């Protein structure tokens, strides 16, 4: 069995879990009368999300097999990124240095999907940043996987 099968299983499982949140989004949209504007970027953003989650799962899976402290590290890093990334707050609240947000990998990825839904206009730098982060993640994951694939069975 190829290792990617296990990664795909985890990805699909998490996607299904994520799909359970769709009703919440619908209710919120109804309450606040948000009308999503259709754009071609929506499916593209979804595809990029799925691809990235596959890559991130693979990367963390390799690291997690080797190092036991990876899950807590991931959990605490996510916690920090959750507050740093404009999820609960809007980027417009920042008076200066909004461009620094592009250094947060989650921000461009979040923006490419959120802006079409809320009808905002996406900044010019967002898509290149999202693609650059994804490419970086892919290269890193692929390099690590190519190097460590033969060793994986010895770690678990």
């Amino acid at each position, binding site marked *: 069995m190829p290792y990617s099968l296990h990664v795909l299983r985890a990805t699909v499982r998490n996607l299904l879990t994520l799909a359970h949140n769709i009703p919440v989004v619908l209710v919120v949209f109804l309450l606040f009368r948000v009308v999503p504007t259709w754009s071609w970027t929506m499916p593209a953003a979804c595809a990029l999300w799925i691809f990235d989650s596959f890559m991130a799962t693979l990367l963390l899976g390799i690291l997690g097999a*080797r190092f036991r402290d990876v899950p807590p*590290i991931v959990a605490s890093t996510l916690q920090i990124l959750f507050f740093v990334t404009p999820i609960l707050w809007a980027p417009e609240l920042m008076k200066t240095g909004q461009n620094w947000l592009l250094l947060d990998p989650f921000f461009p990825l979040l923006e490419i999907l959120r802006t079409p839904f809320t009808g905002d206009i996406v900044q010019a730098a967002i898509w290149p940043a999202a693609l650059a982060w994804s490419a970086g993640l892919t290269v890193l994951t692929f390099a690590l996987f190519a190097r460590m694939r033969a060793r994986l069975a010895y770690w678990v």
Partner: protein
Amino acid sequence: MVGITVRDLEISFPLYHGNARSLKKTLRNSLSGRFTHDERDRVVVQALRDVSFTLNPGDRLGLVGGNGAGKTTLLRALAGIYEPVGGSVTVTGHIGTLLDPSLGMNMELTGRENIRLRGMFAGLSPAAIRSVEDDVEAFAGLGSFLDLPVQTYSSGMTVRLSFGLATAIMPDVLLMDEWFMAGDASFRQRARKRLETLVSKADILVLSSHMADIMADWCNRLIWLENGQIRMDGSTREVLEAYLGRPLEEPEKDAASPDALPDLIQPAPDAAEPIILPEGLPPIFCRALPAGRAFSFPHSHRVSGVTYCPASRRIETIRPPHAERSIYDPTTSAPQTKSLFYNRQYHAARGCHGGHGGHRPDGCFCGRHAQYGLYRAPE
């Protein structure tokens, strides 16, 4: 072409413990620079070293050795679970493994769903999956439990189901670990019967076991592993005798006496024509068998047997006990030594399913080719 080639196989396990399992400490050590460790500073267990062998269709390899000798590791390396640290492992053919009882079982699915899952994994058609389902249902005898999730099963039920499932799909190369011989007595008997069918249909068998009698029965070649290295590689008998440190007892000598022979092996009738075998073997007489009657030796009758296949005009001799089967091809007159076991390719090449009458794999005399019963020469 089914085959296994192992060249200079080396497998070693790094032992990670304590700090080596922590990303934080590993990073800190590599960044601080002053208290670095040597890259090689880790405990490594050498599981296998310099293991080389080649298996061809018809080979039945047994692995013997004490605990920790590397038997299971070698099986896992053959199955492709461990990639070799050094050397190479090349396996051609469809592999079936009986290594782990719960392999490929999803505890949350029902027994029936697990059967389907395995069938789909093996790439079977829906019809084939259904027949596997019936087969496993009959073997495991779980009744209505088959429709309940596997996690509600007792451990014995799980073993019955997984064993039935693992042995339901016929592979070319069968890898087997010793736990398959465990279980309670009545199950073991049924299991053994089922295994024998599977073993006889596989082209290559690699088996790891402690049981000398199973080795003697099923294998025609043994490798004795010690401390991860091949200590001895040879025929079943010579390796087993060296391993056990005593000669093998001659199995069931009395059964080979003429009065215990099956009725097919009788003094030749007058009308029979002698076939003169090469290399000074005694002349053999043959007579046509009733149509469709298979020629078989039950397990207990390890007699010198000969079959003559008019289709291929070849004479096959069998020398007891568990020696090789020699095939004499009159056209080339070069004797080839073949495994005693059922040779699927031989019959498949002739468009014959090769069902065999005996309940032992080596009692394989396909009814379609062995149209001649062969008899001992009159004393």
